[in-house]
């Protein structure tokens, strides 16, 4: 049965190589690593915006739109966690990172408001002025958060 043993050894060696490759490719701390989370949040806030916009046009239901806002909220949270996980050795990197985190939390707040507003928009006729006002308020909050993040990304050289 030495043949079987040899085959097992080959498979194990192969797995070891893969494990090594995977662990070797773990994120290394550098300014470039900000790119991933930043792009995720940029995409999430735009998706939230689109959901609110569609809801205002009565194109989508409160349930679907608030689900989207909620999903995007989750995505911003996971991006924030990722960013917390990266080390920033130089002072400049620390500044960029903390600005980024501030921007993420602005996005997060805006999405939270959006979700609540979208939830509240169920049942009530969309024509009602309250709902419209509420939705357009969260829409401008989302836009402001988007602009803030975009500026930050341009300054950090992420595009």
């Amino acid at each position, binding site marked *: 049965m030495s043949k079987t043993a040899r085959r097992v050894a080959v498979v194990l060696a192969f797995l070891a190589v893969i494990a090594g490759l995977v662990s070797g490719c773990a994120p290394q701390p550098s300014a470039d690593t900000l790119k991933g989370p930043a792009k*995720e949040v940029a995409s999430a806030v735009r998706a939230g915006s*689109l959901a609110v916009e*569609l809801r205002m046009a009565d*194109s*989508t239901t409160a349930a679907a739109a608030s*689900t989207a806002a909620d*999903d995007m909220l989750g995505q911003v949270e996971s991006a924030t966690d990722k960013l917390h996980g990266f080390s920033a050795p130089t002072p400049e990197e620390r500044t960029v990172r903390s600005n980024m985190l501030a921007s993420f939390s602005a996005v997060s707040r805006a999405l939270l408001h959006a979700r609540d507003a979208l939830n509240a928009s169920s049942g009530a006729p969309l024509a009602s002025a309250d709902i419209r006002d509420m939705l357009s308020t969260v829409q401008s909050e989302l836009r402001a958060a988007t602009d803030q993040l975009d500026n930050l990304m341009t300054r950090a050289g992420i595009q």
Partner: protein
Amino acid sequence: MKRLLGVALGILTAIGGFVDIGDLVTNAVVGSRFGMSLAWVVVIGVVGICLFANMSGRVAAVSGRATFEVIRERMGPRAGLANLGASFLINLMTVTAEIGGIALALQLASGVAYMLWVPFALLAVWLVIWRVKFSIMENVTGLVGLTLVVFAVALFLLKPDWGSLAAQALSPSVPGEESTGTYWYYAIALFGAAMTPYEVFFFSSGAVEERWKVKDLVQSRINVLLGFPLGGFLSLAIAACAAVVLLPAGISVTTLSQVVLPVAQAGGQLALAVLILGIVAATFGAALETTLSSGYTLAQYFGWPWGKFRRPAAASRFHVAMMVVLLAGVAVLATGVDPILVTEYSVVFSAIALPLTYLPILIVANDPQYMGKHVNGRAVNVAGLVYLVIILVASIAAIPLMIASGAGA
């Protein structure tokens, strides 16, 4: 009339099998990040699945042997077991993803968190497998799943610049935002989503369930040649919707709630409602198919009685295996893992396991002992070999690309 109904098997595997949660997500992700520049992969995938599904259906009809019996017998117990392990793991991942997909779609419809829908989805899938006739199951999910055509309707309503869509599709290039590694990683994911092995397990076992004979071969060919291209067409429509609405807006798809945004924008609440119905039907159908496929593969490897044409008591190990698979899938979901993430990995692992499934089919389809005079023609063999090379390359490249691109990040 009977023949017309029979074509529904093809349409079911096209909608529930071709367009399942894997295709929905992968195509939307690709559309939102790469536009139509990976459309060629869908075309290659459709031709490939037509070729091999047709072959496995022919083997099943002529010899009465379903695909995994053939795999065991031809590859022997050891390679067969490796194949069983891989196929079973992928099936389990896919079952998990599909049940998650049903729950996510119901969340979109109701606003109630998807976790709360998972037990209902589980129960519904199991009840259908336990009690509902194979033919009813396939026709109902197949016909309801056809409502996914709303993606194509939405694409027309969006009035896209058809010229630029066609240009992206016909002269593909990697968008500046993305790296070449990521582009090829998603090419493999799309290929895996189109050619998922469970489709041939289901298709060939379904042929045995429906007791196809040689005279049904023409019908089988119609099913495949009509059903799968329809599925491919829907896949392209999903990608195009994402490419028209989400790509310019800077949204890259990571959730099912984003996949439906373009349709809502184009067709409003009515289109959205139809779409959610279609997603529920397609993922439900695929959950049935993948659960059955995991039962089929196990039973066929070990030689147990299987099939929905038997009463559960006459195929007890088959039914117990499927219950275990369903519970395992739900246990995975209960850990809180993102079903969409499971989906994305399942299509790539499908691509890795493809050669294990398709090589034995090609070989047995050439064996006169099984096939009599219905062995493969020369053209089919040449095409089969070309595809085997493509499948092999995709399979070998998948893991290095997954590592290099950080799983498409």
